[in-house]
Each structure stands twice: as structure tokens, then as C-alpha cells.
């Protein structure tokens, strides 16, 4: 019986989804079967249920056939549940008297045998019909959206998103969190960018400064997001600021402390330079760092490590900014939306030991080469060999950790282009002869193929073939003392041995190593390669399955700077749209207590992550505060006497559904 007391009059609609479902399931047979189920008044097949005519069909039937429940068997609810709920409500039915059965992703796409797929679809529809017969009308609640936005990651993606949001002057405050001491990300490491060869610093540093001084941006540098609670419109975020041991508000970046440090020479590897250059225990990551504040590495600083030091830095600081007692500080911020722009991790070239990275001298990764080529890098822009001389021949090996069944199968997309850029710059700075070893030269993009042609005209030597190994084992006198690149030249059809002085490994892009923790914290999903998964690969490329959380840049998959910036802008626009709308609809799936059954054991009180359950000592029962309840269902599952039900997921509904399947 329905809430209004009438017997269920259910309409079942089975979608062909073109050939997606029709090709794998005997749809007419399923429709015939569904028509005979208890409570079903009509069952229909249609080519695309989500199309306008499909929607109209449902509306017409609701009105004319007086349907009071609707089941649509089509794709996953994440795609179209919202669509069909709107359709039934437009026809005057409560949207929660609708149920969606997934026969596309759940059946058609994963079941090879048509007869079995048909049976499976029947079982799922049977379950859906039984469930919908019990469902109750509910009212969706609406809640205000906090206008502030959290941006995680201060690379080019995060900075661009933050600036787009901040420049909208929507009243929103942007919290930009970067875990490194400076914003800028990997782009700050580059000397030039392809295909225009414009100077990366010249286009990046103004943006970095703008981020720092923008009144609408709160920059949390050297900080990490440690927890995110809540839901779209109302997230509670905890940010942990790591201790710099230097008071950020007082430090003016004069670097007198660095000069005064008891260590006369820089002797600790600088992470920004990938360890190629050295720094002191007190340092600034790179000259253009933003914020321009020094920090102390507690692992290297004598005082922090041993408690004994002359502390010359303290004497040198006129502002008294150095503070050895600093500890990690946590800050709470409230935001309505989140943009994730955490970037990528370069492939670890040690995983291809045959290329000698880490074991042979003068074998470098592409990112290291970017630093060598940078005027502020360890060799001030001119790559040189370990002995200080200039290389006369350099080999660049493509696809290291990309398009490789042993490591990553996917193409990292940017490596062909950055390899060409590196080839140009190496030749320009050292005059070396450069060899590029590629599998396929992939240069789609505006001006990219033209750049490739330009390089060929410059005299770049290109050899098609995946390099077998880099070795120092010389077979001839000419090879002695060189790195020998052994490769099958697949155009010429024989194996070559090419002696070079320096090897650059064009490493692919991988997900950040802590993507899984981030994913769990934000309730996102990852694709097969481990990059964050977008809601839809074509139509919702920056949205995620979690409302209010957007992704931009290389955390979603390998991409170059233009594409990253475009995504960041898009993510900012999506977030702003929510801010502008001002409210979000919240599903009314709150918990309800059956006071007659509740024994007052209070197991649920401790379990509730939102403090939404209180104990009424007079009655000896618990109450759920509907405003606070987020509908997570923990209490319903925990209740030992089944006294708690979750609306729309009542035990009876779920059991009816299960009984329908089996």
C-alpha cells in the first residue's frame, strides 16, 4: 500500500540505450516479463529513455494511466537518476517513488551470454519493482552553500583555479593549500615551455605573486589537508601547517640567516632541484619562491637535531623571525566546494634498470634536465657531464615508464613534446649532437607538429625503436668511455649501438604516490592507472562522483600546461556555479528511530560521526536530529535491535529488493 493508501500502479520502462542494452539483452522478452509482475500496470521498451520523447512517454503514462510508481531499467543511477526523478516529479509524482535499475553497466556491458544477461536483467527488474512498491514519498531538503572554496595543490592548475575564483569577486574566499614550501609546482622547475619556447618563469612567477597578494586568496603553503568532513556546500576542512621554524609573518626573505648559518657550504640536497644542487639547513627552495620565506629542515639543522649550535642565524635575523619552538599547527576552515589539483609524480626511472639510471654516470631524467637547463638550476642553464665538460653527443630516450606493459601501459602524452623541447635546448646550450629514440612521435596540438618539423630541420637525429639498454660495456675503441645506447632501429631494420656522453630518460607521468589516501579522504574514485576519475570522460571531465568536488590538471591524467590551465578554469567555473546558485539539495535519507523497539543501549550514539543522535533519559530511547543527520546509515547498521531505519533505505525495502533478486 502506498502512503496515500492506494494500491501500487507501477510503470516499468526498459531502455534499449541504442544497441548498448538491446545488443546484449533480449529487451522485448524482459518487457513482457516485467508486465506480468505484481503491481505492474504497464511495461514499455524505448530506444533512449533519457531523450525528450522517452521522458514524455513516462509523463504521459503517469497522467493517463494514473501510475503511482515508476521503474526505469537503463544505465547507472549516477548518470540519470536525477533526470528521471525530475521527470516523475514534473508529472506530479513524488520523485522518491521512482527506482532505477542498472541493466547497462550492471548487466549488458559485463555479461557475454545473451540468455544469461536477459535472466539477470529480469531478476534485477523484479527486485526493483518489489522495492519501489514499498518506497515512500520524501521531501528533499535544501541547504545553503558556503561560498568559500578549497583548492588542493599550488601548481599551475591550482594557482589558475584559485585566481579564476578569486577574480570573480563573488565574496568567496579561496583557501589554496600547497604542501611544498613554495607554490609553483613542477612548472616552476622548467626553463622553457613547448611549442613556443617561452620562458616558464616569465609566465609563471607573475601568477605566483598574484596568488600571494590577492585579497581573496588565503595561501596555506607548506601545509597539508589532513581531513575533510561534510558534503557539498558544507565541508569542514582541517589543514596542518608544517613548522618552518621561521615565523612567516616576520620573515622578509632577506636571506641573511642563510648566509650566517654555521654551515659555510651548502651540503644538503635541495628537493626543488631534485637533489642536483645543494642547500644549507636553513634555505629558500629557489630564488622566485612564493612565499619568499626561509625555512629550516629539522633533519639537517644542528640545533634541531642535536640541540647544540651557535645559532648564528638567530643573531643574523633582524626581525627575530627564527623560532625553533615552532610546531605543526592545525587550522579549521569551512568551504562549500573543493578543487583537487594535486598534479603528478614523475615515473621512477630506477624501475627500468636497463637504462642505468642511478647506476651509470650521466644518465638523467627529463625533469633533472629541466633543472640543468634552468638559469637558476645547478648548472646555470648549461648541462654538463659529471666531470664538468660539455657533452658532445646526447641521447634522449622516449617512453620510459609509458606505453610499456612492464610498467605503465598508457601514453603519458607530454613526453614526445618535452623531449623535442629538451633536444632543442640541449643543442642550443651545449652544441651537442642530439639523438631522439622514439616509438611513435606523438605531436597532436596547436603548433606541436610544426615544432617537430622545426626540430627535424635543426638537425635532430631521430631513431625509431624502443631502446634495449644503456651500457658502459664497450665493444670497440670508439665506444670506450661512452654510454652506449643499444636499440633496434625499426625503420632501418637492424640493431644499432650509439655511443653518447649523456642520456636523458623521458619519464612518464604517474599518479602522486598518496593519491589513494587523498581518494579516501575525499571519497573520490580512481581509474585503472590510479589517476583520479572524472564523473564522465567527455561530458563531465572536471566533476567527480562526489558533488562539490572537482579535479583539474595532471591528477586526473597526464596533460600539458595548456590543457591543465583549461581544466583549472573549467573547475573554477563549476565551483562558482554552485556558489552563485547558493543552495544545494540534500537527499532526505535521514535515520528514524522506532521508539517502541529502541532499547536505549546507545550503541548508535557513539557511532554517529555527526553527533546527530541524542539519548532521551526520560523515555530511555534515542532521537535523531534530522538537521544534523547526513544519512550515512552507520546507526541503522549498528543498531542491535533494528530499531533504526534509514529513510529510502529501510530494512524492509532492502530485504524486498534482495528477495527479488534471489
Amino acid at each position, binding site marked *: 500500500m502506498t502512503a496515500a493508501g492506494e494500491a501500487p500502479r507501477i510503470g516499468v520502462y526498459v531502455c534499449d540505450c541504442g544497441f548498448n542494452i538491446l545488443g546484449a539483452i533480449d529487451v522485448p522478452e524482459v518487457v513482457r516479463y516485467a508486465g506480468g509482475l505484481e503491481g505492474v500496470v504497464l511495461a514499455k521498451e524505448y530506444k533512449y529513455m533519457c531523450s525528450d520523447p522517452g521522458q514524455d512517454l513516462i509523463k504521459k503514462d503517469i497522467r493517463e494511466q494514473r501510475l503511482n510508481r515508476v521503474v526505469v531499467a537503463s544505465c547507472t543511477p549516477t548518470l540519470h537518476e536525477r533526470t528521471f526523478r525530475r521527470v516523475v516529479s514534473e508529472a506530479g509524482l513524488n520523485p522518491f517513488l521512482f527506482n532505477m535499475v542498472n541493466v547497462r553497466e550492471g548487466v549488458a556491458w559485463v555479461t557475454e551470454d545473451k540468455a544469461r544477461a536477459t535472466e539477470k536483467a529480469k531478476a534485477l527488474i523484479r527486485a526493483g519493482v518489489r522495492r519501489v512498491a514499498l518506497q515512500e514519498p520524501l521531501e528533499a531538503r535544501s541547504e545553503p552553500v558556503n561560498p568559500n572554496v578549497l583548492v588542493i595543490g599550488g601548481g599551475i592548475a591550482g594557482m589558475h583555479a584559485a585566481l579564476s575564483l578569486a577574480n570573480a569577486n563573488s565574496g568567496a574566499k579561496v583557501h589554496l593549500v600547497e604542501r611544498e614550501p613554495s607554490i609553483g609546482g613542477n612548472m616552476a622547475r622548467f626553463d622553457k615551455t613547448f611549442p613556443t619556447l617561452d620562458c616558464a618563469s616569465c609566465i609563471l612567477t607573475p601568477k605566483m605573486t598574484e596568488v600571494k597578494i590577492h585579497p581573496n586568496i588565503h595561501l596555506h603553503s607548506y601545509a597539508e589537508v589532513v581531513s575533510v568532513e561534510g558534503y557539498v556546500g558544507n565541508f569542514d576542512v582541517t589543514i596542518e601547517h608544517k613548522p618552518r621554524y621561521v615565523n612567516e609573518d616576520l620573515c622578509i626573505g632577506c636571506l641573511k640567516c642563510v648566509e650566517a648559518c654555521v654551515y659555510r657550504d651548502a651540503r644538503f640536497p635541495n628537493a626543488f632541484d631534485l637533489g642536483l644542487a645543494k642547500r644549507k639547513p636553513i634555505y629558500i627552495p629557489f630564488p622566485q619562491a612564493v612565499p619568499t620565506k626561509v625555512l629550516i629542515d629539522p633533519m639537517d639543522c644542528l640545533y634541531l637535531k642535536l640541540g647544540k649550535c651557535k645559532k648564528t642565524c638567530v643573531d643574523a635575523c633582524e626581525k627575530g623571525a627564527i623560532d625553533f619552538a615552532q610546531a605543526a599547527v592545525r587550522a579549521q576552515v569551512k568551504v562549500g566546494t573543493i578543487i583537487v589539483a594535486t598534479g603528478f609524480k614523475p615515473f621512477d626511472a630506477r624501475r627500468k*634498470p636497463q637504462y642505468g639510471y642511478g647506476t651509470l654516470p650521466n644518465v638523467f631524467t627529463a625533469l633533472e634536465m629541466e633543472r640543468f637547463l634552468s638559469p637558476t638550476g645547478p648548472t646555470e642553464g648549461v648541462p654538463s657531464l659529471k666531470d664538468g665538460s660539455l657533452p658532445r653527443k646526447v641521447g634522449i630516450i622516449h617512453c620510459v615508464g609509458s606505453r610499456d606493459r612492464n610498467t605503465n601501459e598508457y601514453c603519458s602524452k607530454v613526453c614526445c613534446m618535452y623531449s623535442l623541447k629538451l633536444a632543442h635546448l640541449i643543442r642550443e646550450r651545449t652544441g651537442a649532437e642530439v639523438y631522439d629514440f622514439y616509438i611513435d612521435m606523438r605531436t597532436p596540438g596547436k603548433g606541436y607538429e610544426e615544432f617537430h618539423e622545426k626540430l627535424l630541420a635543426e638537425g635532430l637525429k631521430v631513431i625509431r625503436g624502443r631502446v634495449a639498454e644503456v*651500457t*658502459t*660495456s664497450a665493444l670497440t675503441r670508439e665506444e670506450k668511455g661512452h654510454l652506449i645506447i643499444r636499440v633496434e632501429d625499426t625503420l632501418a631494420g637492424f640493431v644499432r649501438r650509439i655511443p653518447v656522453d649523456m642520456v636523458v630518460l623521458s619519464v612518464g607521468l604517474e599518479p602522486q604516490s598518496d593519491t589513494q589516501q587523498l581518494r579516501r579522504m575525499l571519497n573520490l574514485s580512481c581509474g585503472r592507472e590510479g589517476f583520479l576519475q572524472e564523473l564522465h570522460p567527455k561530458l563531465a571531465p572536471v566533476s567527480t562522483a562526489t558533488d562539490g568536488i572537482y579535479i583539474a590538471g595532471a591528477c586526473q591524467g597526464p596533460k600539458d600546461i595548456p590543457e591543465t590551465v583549461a581544466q583549472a578554469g573549467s573547475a573554477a567555473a563549476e565551483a562558482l556555479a554552485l556558489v552563485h546558485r547558493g543552495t544545494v539539495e540534500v537527499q532526505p535519507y535521514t535515520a528514524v528511530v522506532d521508539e517502541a523497539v529502541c532499547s536505549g543501549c546507545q550503541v548508535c550514539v557513539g557511532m554517529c560521526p555527526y553527533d546527530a543522535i541524542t539519548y532521551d533519559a526520560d523515555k530511555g530511547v534515542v532521537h535523531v536530529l534530522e538537521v544534523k543527520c547526513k544519512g550515512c546509515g552507520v546507526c541503522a547498521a549498528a543498531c542491535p535491535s533494528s530499531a533504526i531505519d534509514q529513510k529510502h533505505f529501510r530494512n524492509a525495502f532492502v530485504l524486498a529488493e534482495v528477495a527479488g533478486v534471489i
Partner: protein
Amino acid sequence: MKDYLYFPGCSLKGAGSPYEKSLLAVFRALGISLTEIPDWNCCGATAYLSVDADMGTVLAARNLALAERADGRDIVAPCSGCFLALSKAKAMIAEYPDLRAKVDDALGRGGLPYEGRVAVRHPLEVLLKDVGPDRLRKSVVRPLKDFRVAPYYGCAILRPYETVDSAHVPTVLEELTRIAGATPVDYPHKARCCGGMLTTGVQSVGLRLAEILLDAAKSAEADAIVTTCPLCQYNLEVYQDRLCRSTRKDLRIPVMYFTQMLGLAMGMDERTLAIDQLFRVPVLACPAGGRA
């Protein structure tokens, strides 16, 4: 101590007999018993596999089935060819049901069931994993001081199954070398091809591969190459004089089995370890029979 079944294969009963002698001596001294699989036959390696792969698999499977019938203990297969043939047969039969049917049919005619439950082990694995570095270290009475060793793995115990060690950066032989008190030298090709069957088929290619290895070991100033495989040992040892003449390089270097190296460190004499059967006998800095 754990006991094992032993699959010698043709090599260890023929050209590789120094391997068998030293292996048995070392294992005996460590208190490990090796029992030959009764009525074992050819492992089905190289030649057979290239003519009739299915029959090669059946031959290997018969050995595995015999081991199951014997008592199902782990099989120690010292020859790299046998080790790979047996490991591969076991893996392939488990993966492909139609191959399994052929094997069941062939073995069934002889009344021999096959279940695939015995493990195929390499003696290196047994020494370092089952016996363990600590016990091995205790057994060393004569550390091979100042003895520089080029560890050479060959292909088959590392590829495609990396059960013994990493295919690209293997280190177990280095570990064993250090346990024996000797010094492992680093050189680029320790898991590269020794020339394999090409030294007989396409000699120009096969000998070239052997030359590359010998040259690399010599350049690294090794006193000996220590290997795990009878074919590698043969290829690297017997062509040395010929390669010296054709390349005008000094490529002379002793090529010994890892079991011989360990046996020396355990204080055994050259006869017991069949070191006197090698073409070139390694020269040790320390005298036999005592601590250096």
C-alpha cells in the same frame, strides 16, 4: 633439516658433472638430503620444445608427476634449463585447460596422475631462503679473502619467472659470494645471454655473446666468473682460447659453479668439488683447509 627431491637432468650427469659433485657435497655438508626422483626422464627443454612443444610439456609433467608419487616434496632442479622447463610446464598446465587435457591423457595411459602440487626450486633459492644466510655463514671456515668474483646468472632462472631473483637486478649470487668471504664485482651483463645454443648453431653470434661477457668480467678485474648453469659454464669456458686468438684480447678467466665457490669456503678440497675438472682452476689467495 628439510629434505628434497632431486632432478639432475642430462647435464649434471654429463658435461655438468662438476656441478653435481659440488652440489651434492655442499648439500650433504649442510645436512640436506637430496633424493633422485625415481625413473626421471628428459626435462623436455630446448630441443624438444622447439620441435613439439606439447610433447616437451608432457615430458616435464611426467617428472613432476613422478615426484608427486614419490612423496611430493619440493624438487631441486640445479640445471637452469631443467629448472625453467619444469617451472614452465607447471605454470602452462595450470593456465591452459586444453594442454592439461593432453598431459592428463598422455600420463593417464601410463597410469600416472598429475595434480601440479610439487614446487620446483633452484638450489640458490634453497640455500638462501631455506637454509638461510646465518647458517651458511656459520658453515664457512675458509673465507675466500681477496677473491674477486663476477656473478653470472644467465637467463633461465630469472626469466620469465622471477621466483629466484629480479630479472633485471638480481643480487642473490652477490649475497652468496659475500657469505663465502669473496668480493662480488659489478659489471653490466650479469643476466645477459651466454650465447646459449647459438654457440653451436650460429657460432658468429653465439661466440660474440660469450665474448661480451668474458670481456666485461675481465674489465671488472674479476678472478673468476661464478655461474649457475651448465650451459653457461660450458659456453664461457671452452671457447676462451679461440676467442683470445680471434679477438686478440686476453679473455682467460676461470668459470666455476656457485656450489664450488661455496664448497671452497666451507673448506672442502678441490677434488671433492670437482674443481680439478675445470679447464682453468681459480687461484685463491688463502691456502686450503684453514682460515686465511
